[in-house]
């Protein structure tokens, strides 16, 4: 069987979903037999070098860069998966959605109890920093998403079963305990 090509990325996530992929433990050795990684933090491939079968997205979109990455994933991947609450509905970072972004910045960089004398009221603002969006958006509001794996993070077993089913084309049988919304 030809190896399926996989790409992964972390947008506005905490990297816990990627860690949960690592929690498949010994099965990592089997995974490497089944798939080849393209653009992903697991290797040195920065831009897509070939068409990808399965793209895995962790995190929603909180800045302009996240949106760019997500769009490039949609363009280059046949199947796109939203992995975890943040990708599916914004998750914890989306708690800022009801609050004006200036208030968040002021609290962190001006009002904080350990902020030293910041009399000029400096806020981070530089060409090298991407633009913050007004809100944190779930991925499916930006591009079409094909599959959703719930959990914060999704359990390693769920990730493993889902990947094997997608790769081998076998039927996916998910017991209730594996699908957790916590």
């Amino acid at each position, binding site marked *: 069987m030809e190896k399926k090509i996989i790409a992964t990325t972390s947008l506005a996530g905490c*990297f816990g979903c990627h860690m949960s992929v690592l929690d498949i433990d010994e099965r990592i050795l089997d995974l490497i037999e089944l798939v080849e990684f393209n653009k992903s933090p697991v290797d040195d491939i920065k831009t897509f070098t070939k068409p990808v079968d399965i793209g895995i997205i962790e995190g929603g979109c909180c800045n302009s860069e996240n949106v760019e990455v997500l769009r490039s994933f949609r363009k280059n991947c046949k199947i796109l998966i939203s992995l975890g609450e943040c990708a599916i509905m914004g*998750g914890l970072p989306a*708690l800022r959605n009801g609050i004006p972004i200036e208030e968040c910045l002021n609290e*962190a960089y001006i009002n904080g109890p350990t902020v030293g004398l910041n009399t000029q009221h*400096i806020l981070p603002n530089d060409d090298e920093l991407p633009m913050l969006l007004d809100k944190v958006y779930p991925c499916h509001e930006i591009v079409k998403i094909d599959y959703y794996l719930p959990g914060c993070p999704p359990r390693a077993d769920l990730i493993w079963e889902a990947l094997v089913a997608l790769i081998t084309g076998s039927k996916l049988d998910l017991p209730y305990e594996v699908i957790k919304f916590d």
Partner: protein
Amino acid sequence: MPKKITIEPVTRVEGHGKVTIQIDDAGQVRETRLHIVEFRGFERFVQGRPYWEAPVLVQRLCGICPVSHHLAAAKALDVIVGAGTGLGLTAVGEKMRRLMHYGQIFQSHVLHFFHLSSPDFLFGIDADPAIRNIIGVVMHHKDLAVQGVMMRKYGQEIIKYTAGKKIHGTGAIPGGINKNLSIEERDILLHGADPLNADKMVEWSVGALAFFKAYHKNNKTLVDTFAEFPSNHLSIVRADGAMDLYNGVLRAVDTEGTRILDDVDCQDYDKYIEEEVRSWSYMKFPYLKHLGKENGWYRVGPLARLNTCDFIPTPLAQREFEEFKAYTHGKPNNMTLHYHWARLIETLHAAEEIKNLLIDTDLQKEDLVVKGKKSHRGVGVIEAPRGTLFHHYEINDNDQITLANLIVSTTNNNQPMNLAVNHTAKSFMNGQKEITEGMMNAVEVAIRAYDPCLSCATHALGQMPLEMTLVNENNEIIDCKTK
């Protein structure tokens, strides 16, 4: 014409962190910056939430060491519910949390060493990037890769049995914990089938240390001089000066080993530490107030902890500690790549500590929670795998959070990481006509030694994808390289 080089670890295309390097006409590195490009805003958005949510909410900032945030928040809330500053918990409460924490230290240090850094040691800093990653390790050094995977698994299992879940658990609550360790769970962890048991983990930790020491012996100049620069060092230590990663008082030493902060109660952290805001990064720059911005910055993490503590309270790690101290004649160690050495000594200490805790029958006791007189302010400080982590909360009479302040480990290392980048860029790139992939990786190796957590994505699973752009002063791209 002056140039600007951008090394974007996870780049514009992936977020979290990137490096810019400015080179002048003469080919000399002028300015370097490590930018953190992510902003969450939790200080504001946790306001108004009930305080007991903090330990489960705030850990979701970082899935690489969530236990540290979980416990630091719980420790701050211990103070708020009147359960003392961590020592006020019941024996089972305190020890279950310690077990959770040392399990976390163990898995995180293992991940960093085996999955992230070993490729640089096994294949060389300027080796072909196609094999210089964890998949290369699996292909070419399977035994080592399997050890790394199983050691991490063991640490994660400890977290599962203490926190309820491997990532983003719920075990610590204000004033204590919500479960103890059953005899069955204890036996699985203590005497599990090979290799998943406490003795094997100690044995393998000793092996990992031997591996690094052999590498050091053969690459002395590199390991000793790479991004070496003097600094202050800060951590918590037990009241008697022992290494303690869960609880203690703040201590800092300068580059000569003189104590510049000693015996400071963590509740007073804000009397001693301040942060500077710089416009080009979302990450602030902390320093010791009394020494000021210029001289008050410090390192945290494994290297700093071995510089601040007087001894390590487990025998095998203590022996290694003595060897480590002797290498610098008892003076503080300022060599960036020695972070790896220090991290592996701590890995061994964590394995020994885990075993000690597992045989302690206090873990089966039933008095899980204590409560006392409520107060409105609490600070929790813990030594996370990457260094000192501060959580500070204030609440109102309705039990809602009114203030949250966090100084995370990687923030504490902001200035040192920037300096490490600067040193490395200068020593590898000054006067060079061509910037090679190996030089770019050298800059990453410097950052990676600090095991930065905010650029989790950049390093968590292996090498960072890198893009370097040569730009003229008008920001026009002259040349662009991807590795």
